[in-house]
């Protein structure tokens, strides 16, 4: 929003005030000023001139040679304006003067010398009008500097609308002036209005508010005998500087009032609209707004109608049919208050946000409707003294806001602010802001002014803001809190996450990635990944990605596909969320998962399988001091990217926490046949609930142990874990340890078999074991294994 300092100074004295400092103060105490524009300083030596002679330009059909009387002399200039005529009074820029960026010098235009320039409104910076010269009223002595009667010089500051969302009172100059008066400790002048009570005996306008939910107040007045069509120049300049295009007197006046008080108004041609019904329509209705657009207005949108048909969309825009035209000489003036939420939603549905609807959205003060009419009338009568009021001020005040009273004391302010603001200061600030203040020492009793009481100020905490912002946050003494030292409880989940990330990135040189929480359906399709139905987003603007993922792996496989061309050797991981369906209470079962993916053209499918398994084991050992167990799980086959054979669930103490797998050949063929891929997914909450193994320390035996490697011949399909469980059946106190050394397979030498070399360590804590006893133990062990069809390889 643009704020004119000339306009402000009508309501509060700005003399002697440094505007820059004031604007800085305004930013810190009220709302951010985004930009400052200086107008009119670049207009110099532009005077009133009268065209007294027009001749054709010898070299141009469009240009003319004109003689301009500027009082002291007559000067010749070249003029291209189509509306030039003898007797026209125009702004004339003299030699040595300035118009915008243009310095006026003697110039040859199409071969003829010009000694100055006749100006359009656009050239003077007061509007976009450049179709012809600006024509002045013939009332000024020729040669008068136009700045003596035109308020060309003004400082306009631009306030960010967003920072005014919560301040409906600041959507007009008068409200801003009130704020500035407080900041400068000067007084705010009362509005100069016509007291409409003198018309109370005139007839009422026929107004019926049929929808008392959506319309809070509807005030109106009719006026006839309006002769003037064009607004005075200074009003047009102000509107224009504030970003509003001047149209005609009545439209300009409604806009002017909206910019002055923040109250949107509408002027209906009284010949076309004489009665008012405020209501919604039971069915969708076609309506042409004054921007000449045919609109469908739905049944939730409030309409202003006459006895027959809609004439305006309440709070948004009037209709074309009842619009002010050149013929209009009487008006029905609307100054109303509509429900802000209703206006906002209707404006959104219609796709039509206007200056009026933007103000209603902020929930403006219903007390404004009558002063707006009275002020309108005051201005209209000054401009066009012949006008006549033809109705009494008709006011349907359907819904009043409650008066808000707030009690508080200085101690409350002290506690909230942490500084000492005196009770006198509090009283002074709040009174200046318009609050009704009753004070007993440090106890306060407030009445919130109507312009702040629609939603903005409702409770004690709101008063803190009023006091502190005027006090100035930059004047605050800042302090640390007075609190004791207490130990901080840190979330284990988070610190484990960082440990995992560091381990994966540092030890395994993997790259952490982030992917979206939904399935990327296009990529899944390309890779042939089929996902199960899961909870969906209802309104995603990328509709194909509407399913929340139940697993991270498809996202990661998509990343593999994206990166394989630049470098096929990769390891990626993500800690991210998935939706594991719904819980019993109907809420999403959100899980935090770790997803890992490895891809390589150097490692074989088998190697990458074991690499992936190694990483999983390393992680769990680091985090939980425990080696997981693995199991075949049929259910994994539901994911078509999981390998039906070479996949396994990961378990801690018998509880499944995730799985790992190599890629299913079907997906692999689509991704890259030569690329070997393995992946793992672990549920971090399940991992978190699993017990962490404590550290255990035991003394090392002083006596030497004996290690014996045995190569065991087994069926090829036998898993190593079976050998482990068989060996564990041999309960021997001296067999302290055993582990896998090597697995040898050779279809020719050992058809259907494999040789598994295991290293056994026998040791006693009391003595050195004899060779003979060890041999006995080995024999016993081998006998036990032989019973399981495992023999020693010869």
């Amino acid at each position, binding site marked *: 929003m643009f704020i004119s300092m000339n306009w402000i100074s009508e309501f509060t004295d700005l003399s002697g005030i440094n505007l820059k400092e004031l604007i800085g103060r305004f930013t810190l105490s009220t709302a951010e000023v985004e930009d400052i524009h200086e107008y009119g300083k670049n207009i110099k030596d532009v005077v009133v001139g009268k065209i007294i002679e027009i001749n054709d330009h010898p070299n141009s059909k469009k240009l003319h040679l004109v003689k301009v009387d500027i009082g002291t002399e007559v000067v010749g200039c070249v003029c291209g304006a189509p509306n030039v005529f003898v007797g026209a009074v125009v702004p004339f820029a003299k030699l040595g003067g300035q118009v915008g960026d243009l310095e006026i010098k003697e110039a040859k235009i199409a071969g003829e010398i010009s000694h100055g320039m006749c100006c359009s409104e656009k050239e003077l910076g007061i509007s976009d009008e450049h179709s012809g010269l600006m024509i002045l009223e013939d009332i000024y002595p020729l040669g008068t500097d136009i700045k003596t009667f035109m308020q060309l010089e003004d400082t306009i500051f631009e306030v960010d609308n967003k920072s005014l969302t919560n301040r409906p009172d600041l959507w007009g100059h008068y409200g801003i002036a009130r704020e500035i008066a407080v900041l400068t400790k000067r007084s705010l002048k009362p509005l100069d209005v016509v007291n409409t009570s003198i018309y109370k005996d005139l007839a009422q306008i026929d107004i019926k508010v049929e929808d008392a939910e959506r319309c809070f107040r509807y005030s109106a007045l009719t006026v006839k005998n309006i002769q003037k069509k064009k607004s005075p120049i200074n009003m047009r300049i102000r509107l224009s500087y504030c970003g509003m295009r001047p149209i005609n007197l009545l439209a300009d006046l409604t806009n002017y009032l909206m910019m002055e008080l923040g109250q949107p108004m509408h002027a209906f041609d009284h010949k076309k609209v004489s009665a008012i019904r405020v209501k919604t329509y039971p069915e969708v209705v076609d309506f042409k707004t004054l921007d000449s657009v045919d609109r469908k207005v739905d049944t939730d949108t409030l309409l202003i109608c006459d006895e027959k048909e809609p004439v305006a969309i309440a709070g948004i825009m009037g209709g074309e049919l009842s619009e002010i035209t050149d013929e209009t000489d009487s008006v029905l003036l609307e100054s109303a208050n509509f429900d802000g939420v209703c206006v906002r939603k209707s404006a959104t549905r219609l796709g039509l946000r206007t200056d009026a609807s933007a103000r209603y959205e902020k929930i403006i003060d219903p007390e404004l409707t009558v002063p707006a009419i009275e002020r309108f009338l005051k201005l209209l009568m000054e401009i066009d003294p012949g006008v006549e009021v033809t109705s009494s001020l008709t006011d349907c005040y359907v819904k009043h806001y409650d008066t808000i009273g707030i009690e508080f004391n200085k101690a409350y302010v002290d506690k909230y602010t942490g500084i000492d603001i005196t009770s006198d200061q509090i009283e002074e600030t709040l009174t200046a802001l318009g609050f009704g203040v009753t004070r007993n020492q440090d106890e306060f009793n407030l009445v919130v002014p109507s312009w702040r009481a629609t939603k903005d100020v409702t409770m004690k905490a709101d008063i803190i803001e009023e006091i502190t912002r005027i006090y100035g946050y930059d004047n605050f003494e800042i302090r640390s809190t007075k609190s004791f030292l207490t130990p901080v409880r840190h979330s284990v989940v988070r610190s484990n996450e960082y440990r995992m990330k560091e381990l994966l990135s540092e030890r395994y040189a993997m790259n952490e990635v982030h992917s979206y929480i939904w399935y990327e359906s296009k990529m899944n399709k390309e890779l042939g990944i089929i996902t199960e139905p899961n909870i969906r987003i209802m309104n995603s603007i990328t509709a194909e990605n509407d399913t929340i993922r139940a697993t991270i792996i498809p996202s990661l496989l998509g990343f593999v596909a994206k990166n394989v061309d630049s470098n096929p050797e990769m390891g990626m991981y993500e800690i991210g969320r998935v939706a594991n369906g719904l819980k019993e209470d109907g809420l*999403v079962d959100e899980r935090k998962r770790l997803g890992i993916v490895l891809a390589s053209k150097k490692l074989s499918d088998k190697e990458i399988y074991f690499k992936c398994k190694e990483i999983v084991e390393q992680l769990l050992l680091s985090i939980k001091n425990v080696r997981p167990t693995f199991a075949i799980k049929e259910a994994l086959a539901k994911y078509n990217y999981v390998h039906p054979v070479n996949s396994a669930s990961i378990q801690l103490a018998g509880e499944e926490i995730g799985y790992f797998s190599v890629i299913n050949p079907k997906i692999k063929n689509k991704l890259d046949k030569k690329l070997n891929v393995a992946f793992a997914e672990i549920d971090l909450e399940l991992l978190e609930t699993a017990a962490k193994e404590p550290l255990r320390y035991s003394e090392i035996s002083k006596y030497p142990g004996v290690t014996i490697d045995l190569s065991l011949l087994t069926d090829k399909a036998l898993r190593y874990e079976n050998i482990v469980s068989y060996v564990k059946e041999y309960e021997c106190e001296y067999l302290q340890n055993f582990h896998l050394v090597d697995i040898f397979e050779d279809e020719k030498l050992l058809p259907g078999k494999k040789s598994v070399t295991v290293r056994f360590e026998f040791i006693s804590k009391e003595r050195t074991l004899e060779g003979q006893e060890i041999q006995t133990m080995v024999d016993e062990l081998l006998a036990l294994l032989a019973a399981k069809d495992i023999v020693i390889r010869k």
Partner: protein
Amino acid sequence: MLENLEKIKAQFKEELNGVNMKDEIERIRVAFLGKKGLVTEALKDLRNLDVEAKKVAGQQVNLLKDEIEKAIVEFQKTLEEREYQKEIANTERYDFSIPSDVTVGTLHPITIVQSQIEDIFKTMGFIIEDGLEIQTEFNNFEGVNIPKNHPARDMTDTYYLENGQLLKTHTSAAQNTIMRKYGAPKPGEPLKVLFPGRCFRNENIDASHENTFFQLEGMMIGDDISISNLIYFMKVLLSEVFERDVKVRLRPGFFPFVEPGFELDINCAICGGSGCPTCKHSGWLELLPCGMIHPNVLRLGGIDPDKYTGFAFGLGLTRLAMMKYNIKDIRLFNSGNLKQLRQFTI
């Protein structure tokens, strides 16, 4: 006897001079000092002498023995040094400029920035909390004082799920849960929590817009928390985050979950506050929203607003990472593009 010793000595010197190799020394040692060596033999010969002569000759033989032993040790050292020098002279000089085959993994830029900030807050006694990404409407809106009909609820940029839940639009969605988890703080022991999280907005993506991004929010609630404390904390914390002594300033700002609410600016790092194009000549950069937690929010969180006050602040983590690493295109973060992400080495 003595003549014999002289002869042995002369012979030893001669033989030693002819030695070049280390193992030859051993041969000489055996030849002179071994069981059948010349010196040993000479010692054996002593038994043929009378007592007096044995004493004199014995001394001489022992002297000779010592002398030979020493000479051998000396000579051995000399030879070792000579061989060492020869080895060094023939050593290949390795080229340290040949690059090693080191691979380092990377962390996501968000993780890097997030953990740095978490560490700063931990030193100031903040608990780090985590919230759900899929939230109820209550937690995301009502619980933080954004009632139905509030303009923020109109915005079509919230992802709504089939079951009525939504993808959280801001980290504030965790406030209610956290307040309920920890309850009203004990006197003098304010609740200090930091909760980073991933947020979602249903909008089209381009270089400066993402539908999935990270924020970080913090709050401090106690029986004695004031605006003055808020300014202090923000100044101290932001000085740590930006590793310089930042100046902060507050301006009124409106956010439904705080009252009063502020926009916090920091002095521009580029010009130091004198005004430059980066700060639009104001000397200040708008950094984060903050404020005193709205009494309604406290009440809904089960904390009595008549007894407790608190402040809250939010920070765009994604935006901060972009500032820190000069990332121009926000799409990097969720791209999985390893060419780019591999630069964030740890």
